């Protein structure tokens, strides 16, 4: 059973430091298992969020050796037992305590996105959509809201002043997912430009790199949206795009 040294950030808004914990790892363990071991033995008050422990809920985001990751999906066999491993909270958001940060920014941004408004159903009262027309939107629906993309986005991370008018990659794909819903009728381009601040994104693709769901945030979400903006927004083109969703309706 290898023993690791974890350097875990302990502290709050007033400051803090990394403290060393020596922890044994069993076969197949992930970083979150070791954090739980620390809680169960040395430091029951070590604050960390977690829920599913299977990469499905997106609660246990942290910066492990400086890299934004889910603690539950980061296996210990990635590391050499001799090398200390640093575990820090996601830095972009204000710290509450230890590994827990205040992510309320994301919930504010979520509420601003104009919701779906569906066109009326078919004559028999049913909605019909073809699988190939929802594949792309389904990709965006895979988002587990771990906010790692938000953490790594330098527009949010390094520029406090952008926060009021910038929603970040998580919400760009939220918007894209709604726009690509074959039955949606809302135009969100002005929202994406003025309130979500998509123009500030300069496509460094950091968000896509850290996405644990491997969503092509930039290539499939942000870039097509930017192209639409750059097209000077032609309402005819937009309408045509909207109607494409209905083209497979059965005869």
């Amino acid at each position, binding site marked *: 059973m290898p023993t690791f040294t974890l350097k875990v950030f302990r502290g709050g808004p007033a400051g803090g430091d990394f403290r060393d914990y020596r922890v044994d790892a069993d076969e197949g363990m992930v970083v979150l298992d070791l954090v739980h071991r620390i809680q169960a033995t040395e430091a029951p008050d070590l604050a960390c969020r977690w829920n599913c422990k299977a*990469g499905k809920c997106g609660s246990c985001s942290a910066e492990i050796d400086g890299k934004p990751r889910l603690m539950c999906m980061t296996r210990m066999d990635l590391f050499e037992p001799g090398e200390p491993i640093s575990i820090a909270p996601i830095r972009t958001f204000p710290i509450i305590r230890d590994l827990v940060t205040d992510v309320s920014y994301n919930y504010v941004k979520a509420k601003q996105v104009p919701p779906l408004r569906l066109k009326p159903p078919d004559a028999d009262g049913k909605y019909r959509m073809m699988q190939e027309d929802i594949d792309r939107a389904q990709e965006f629906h895979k988002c587990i809201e771990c906010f790692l993309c938000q953490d790594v986005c330098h527009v949010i991370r390094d520029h406090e002043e952008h926060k009021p008018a910038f929603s970040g990659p998580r919400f760009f794909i939220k918007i894209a997912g709604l726009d690509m819903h074959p039955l949606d009728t809302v135009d969100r381009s002005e929202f994406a430009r003025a309130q979500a601040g998509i123009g500030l994104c300069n496509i460094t693709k950091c968000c896509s790199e850290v996405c644990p769901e491997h969503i092509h945030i930039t290539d499939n979400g942000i870039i097509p949206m930017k192209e639409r903006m750059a097209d000077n927004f032609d309402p005819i083109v937009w309408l045509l795009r909207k109607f494409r969703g209905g083209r497979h309706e059965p005869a």
Partner: protein
Amino acid sequence: MATPEYETHEHDVIVIGAGGAGLRAAIEAAAQGVSVGLICKSLLGKAHTVMAEGGIAAAMGNVWPEDNWQVHFRDTMRGGKMVNNWRMAQLHAQEAPDRVLELERWGALFDRTKEGLILQRDFGGHRYARLAHVGDRTGLEMIRTLQYHAIHQGIDVYMECKVERLLKDGDRIAGAIGYWRNTGRFVLFKAKAVVLATGGIGKAWKITSNSWEYTGDGQSAALWAGADLIDMEFVQFHPTGMVWPPSVRGILVTEGVRGDGGTLKNNKGERFMFSYIPEFFKGETADNEKEADAWYADKKNRRTPDLLPRDEVARAINSEVKAGRGSPHGGVFLDICTRRPADYIRKRLPSMYHQFKELAGVDITREPMEVGPTCHYVMGGVRVDADSTQATVPGLFAAGEVAAGLHGSNRLGGNSLSDLVVFGRRAGLHAGLYAKNFAGALRVDQAEVEAAARAMLEPFDRTGGENPYVLQAELQETMHTLVGIIRTEAEMRQALDKIETLKERAKKVRVDGGRVYNPGWHTALDLGSLLTVAECTTLAALERQESRGGHTRDDHPYTDDTWGKVNVVLRLRNGAVQVSREPLPEMPAELRALFQERK
């Protein structure tokens, strides 16, 4: 000790829990025009619903037009071994299709049929392919849809807020007290009606698919407030949890693997489920591989025994392992790689593919999975009125896993997500109506609030007590070894003794550090509810001297018709849990006839 400070919020309705049931309840209550507070222990969108994989059961008939609510009703009752609340099973089967279509209207993108309708998949115990789904991440789609719909309905959301106790004014509900996890400050909710949507109790067991949140908060709060619990002996062990590596033991492997063609094998390569078909399901279950495999495409064949209800499959796996026919790490093999093409597997089961690849280093398109039973779901919980979801305390409502009745002694896969939205909606509706008709003043007893707050702070003042995590681990070990899949009277008596000593030790646990986001403190407080539900399950399991669904007694191995007519009821009287048996509601003749018509 000084009087602890607390903040106060007042709503017509508060909903405790923001998984599928809580979100749906809050949406419906808000639609009644009342003020609604939605309280959740985690961040919004992280509740246990997010982990549901396979799908939501609803007889929409998109794949098999022969399907209808009567067939779904019948499957649900038979899966629960006929001790379900028939009226809940009826409402559930009738209303589930509308609730699925409503999710679609609110933005859920379910996988589609070739005609562009919602695709439905096969699952255990369901006669027809009935589960609307999104690959194997249906719960995520559902919670996001409800979450993003709810945030535009004028609901006040209290995130990372834990409710500790319910408050009453005389006989009726008056609110709840809890604390903010972020700050440790206390918060009082005054409310005319309370909807419990707090989920399950699985964290009382060692090997579980449940997260830290599943500590029986709602069941305990209801019991302490004087409400009845029923069916607490019925605990579902999902047959397929991961077994290796040790750190992921218990994590769920969706039944969709078998629904999409996967099969269980022992270490001799035998499809052993053919040896475990009970008399009760013989008429509808294939007894040979050819028919079983043909059933996927043609429902004129009988269903594969791989998709018997979960209780049957879990016991079968348990027996195979005990007989020495298990896999290297103490489970059995679940094979889809030799039965379906790799592309199909990756498309239908993306998150299983990902989970095994990243956590176990297993490529499920090339190798079989190793799986074994894991504590997954409690069928029992708060006793409710079927139509209104009201508990036996006026003003208290319950929906989802915390409520009992719908699933009887064993829940069918897919019937949980539909339960959440069918009864979540009903709970929100009736709580809203109750609040509108509420007469008189809304009063809470300040002394009671202060006493509850003081009690929550006690662990900080103790010296020399134990670490709460130690007690939690001992309880989990106790329930796992003594009140697991197979139970005996002697072992359960041992468990009760152990629970008693843990209750005494819990009164002395010590917590270090401050009140700001302190998991040690949270764990110390959760011990109260965890020990309560562990005791309730054990007491009810001792009482029921037969085997049925999620309750198997080695010392009473047979199903007994006299026990098929009663619920085991638990209620708190004079500080002790009282156990009694009460008759099940009687099914009307026209529904009873559904069980005679078919083989």
